[in-house]
């Protein structure tokens, strides 16, 4: 693979996807420390919100230590070069949240829908584009449908005004060939001035390989997370990706030693437990299940005595999508009743 001279914009997820792994309990001081460390390392884009995006604060997904507005107001003014992005899932977040984020100084808004439901994003993408924001359409769980379906949905988001489209491997299920096929078709068929992005999870340890495949196929934005802090087995570990891109003479603009230090000195100490590919995280990738279900399944296992792996496999079989965290306890209760445990 030849990526020599290829420019790649890296986008850090540790303060958004990482919120899942931290049960949304990152403190303001920790947010500021990590974000300023990343800024200093040359990270161009950093996402900051509740794990489930703007408005995610809820009993269903977890109440965060602080409101999105507090996090954004704490982090944005501290940035020298890095820009701050925010995620928004229509159905959870609203235009009011979007306007709040803009007022806080967020420059990039990423409107996320399930990979078949792009038409719920019209009002949010439209508004963000109208406000002159860097507007990203983020198609989640993209492994569940064909490349043609992803393209059809991406075209909708493009028509609403998105200037960048993401193919998102929320379950960490994809293998590099699938990434190549999907990003390749998007690159061939979308407007040439629309950027492409890839967001991976490391549940089959494919984060780096898939990201490289995506770059080769035409993606110019790659999501990852310093030290992998993210849902499931985490996101593509960014310090590793930076090292690999350096070796390949691709251009990320991120300082390798500095981001290694952020990973080791700031992120690892704040992990509740090591982000690793344990059997439950592996099950996510193998069964194609939304990565943030991991800790919910582990808690259901502890509470109801049903194995997290069995719960996750059944959730995959039922075709659950991002946002259906409430299904996990419900299903565990039903499985426990069937087993005569309850």
């Amino acid at each position, binding site marked *: 693979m030849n990526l020599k001279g290829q420019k790649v914009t890296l986008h850090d997820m540790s303060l958004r996807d990482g919120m899942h792994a931290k049960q949304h309990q990152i403190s303001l001081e920790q947010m500021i420390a990590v974000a300023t460390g990343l800024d200093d390392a040359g990270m161009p884009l950093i996402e900051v919100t509740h794990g489930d995006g703007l408005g995610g604060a809820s009993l269903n997904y977890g109440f965060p230590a602080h409101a999105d507005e507090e996090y954004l107001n704490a982090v944005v003014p501290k940035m020298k070069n890095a820009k701050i992005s925010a995620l928004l899932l229509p159905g959870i977040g609203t235009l009011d949240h979007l306007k709040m984020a803009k007022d806080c100084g967020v420059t990039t808004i990423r409107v996320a829908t399930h990979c078949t439901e792009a038409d719920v994003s019209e009002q949010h993408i439209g508004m963000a584009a109208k406000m002159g924001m860097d507007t990203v359409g983020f198609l989640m769980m993209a492994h569940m449908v064909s490349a043609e379906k992803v393209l059809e949905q991406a075209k909708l988001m493009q028509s609403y005004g998105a200037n960048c489209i993401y193919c998102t491997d929320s379950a960490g299920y994809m293998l590099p060939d699938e990434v190549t096929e999907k990003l390749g078709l998007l690159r061939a068929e979308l407007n040439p001035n629309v950027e492409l992005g890839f967001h991976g999870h490391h549940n089959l340890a494919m984060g780096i390989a898939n990201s490289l495949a995506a770059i080769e196929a035409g993606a110019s934005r790659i999501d990852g997370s310093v030290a992998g802090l993210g849902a499931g087995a985490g996101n593509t570990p960014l310090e590793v990706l930076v090292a690999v891109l350096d070796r390949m003479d691709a251009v990320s603009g991120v300082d390798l030693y500095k981001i290694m230090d952020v990973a080791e000195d700031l992120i690892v100490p704040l992990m509740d437990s090591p982000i690793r590919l344990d059997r439950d995280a592996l099950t996510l990738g193998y069964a194609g299940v939304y990565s943030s279900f991991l800790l919910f399944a582990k808690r259901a296992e502890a509470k109801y005595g049903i194995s997290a792996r069995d719960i996750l496999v059944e959730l995959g079989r039922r075709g659950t999508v991002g946002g259906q965290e409430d299904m996990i306890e419900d299903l565990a209760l*039903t499985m426990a009743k069937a087993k005569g445990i309850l």
Partner: protein
Amino acid sequence: MSKKLKAVIIGPGNIGTDLLMKMMRSEWIEPVWMVGIDPESEGLKRAKEMGMKVSITGVDGMLEHVVEDDIRVAFDATSAYVHADNSRKLNELGVIMIDLTPAAIGPFCVPPVNLQDHAKNLEMNVNMVTCGGQATIPMVAAVSRVQPVEYGEIVATVSSRSVGPGTRQNIDEFTRTTSGAVEKVGGAKKGKAIIVINPAEPPLLMRDTVHCLTETEPEQDAITESVHAMVKEVQKYVPGYRLVNGPVFDGRKVTVFMEVEGLGDFLPKYAGNLDIMTAAALRTAEMFAEEAANDTITLPART
């Protein structure tokens, strides 16, 4: 003289047609008019075959018949944009308006919670909130009638096929309207609503999770009893409304997991979210008819 109130349905789409099929069985409401704007519409043709009078020029095409046909109730299954006009024109002629659009000009109506009050007060326009609201607010109310609820949150998961273009283009309206009604009707001090759309095939039944945070330690037995009683109330008009799991108690958090299967009249059974809207709207009109028959309310005078 028949005790039945005569009705007009505005909007011959899926909702209007399903409503018509349910109404054909009603002991209290008699469908007479179906109103549309597209002469080629399948729904209008179907309504005509079912013996309805039809207007192809919207509400205006039937206004002059309201008095002679003794139309007393209107169901608006069009859109928020035209609802206000429809409502004004029909209210002026003494027709009670049941609003299935998100316009919400009139008070929210969730039958087992506050319909009786609306009927007794002869509210001339009541709004049916949203599908998620109809499915979940009875559960919030079931908790809040036992003890104060500081925060109520509902998560509605619906099949992709059951979500129409209107909802998709303005999904914020769902979250805003539903969370408002969780407060106003459900009795939670603060409300939140989340909607998740799932494209699985075969389509999944509507699922709803309701979380409440009670102000003090939940009275488990009383809440459990209240929830079961409320489920039975909803089942009177939506037989496929089921408590799947719960109530589960975790500190001050009370959670119930619901499932809604539709009757499958015109809309498929998985679309319990749409069925609960049409069933609740019909139930609402029936209550007005019952109250009128009992002389507890007097319908607007007509000569």
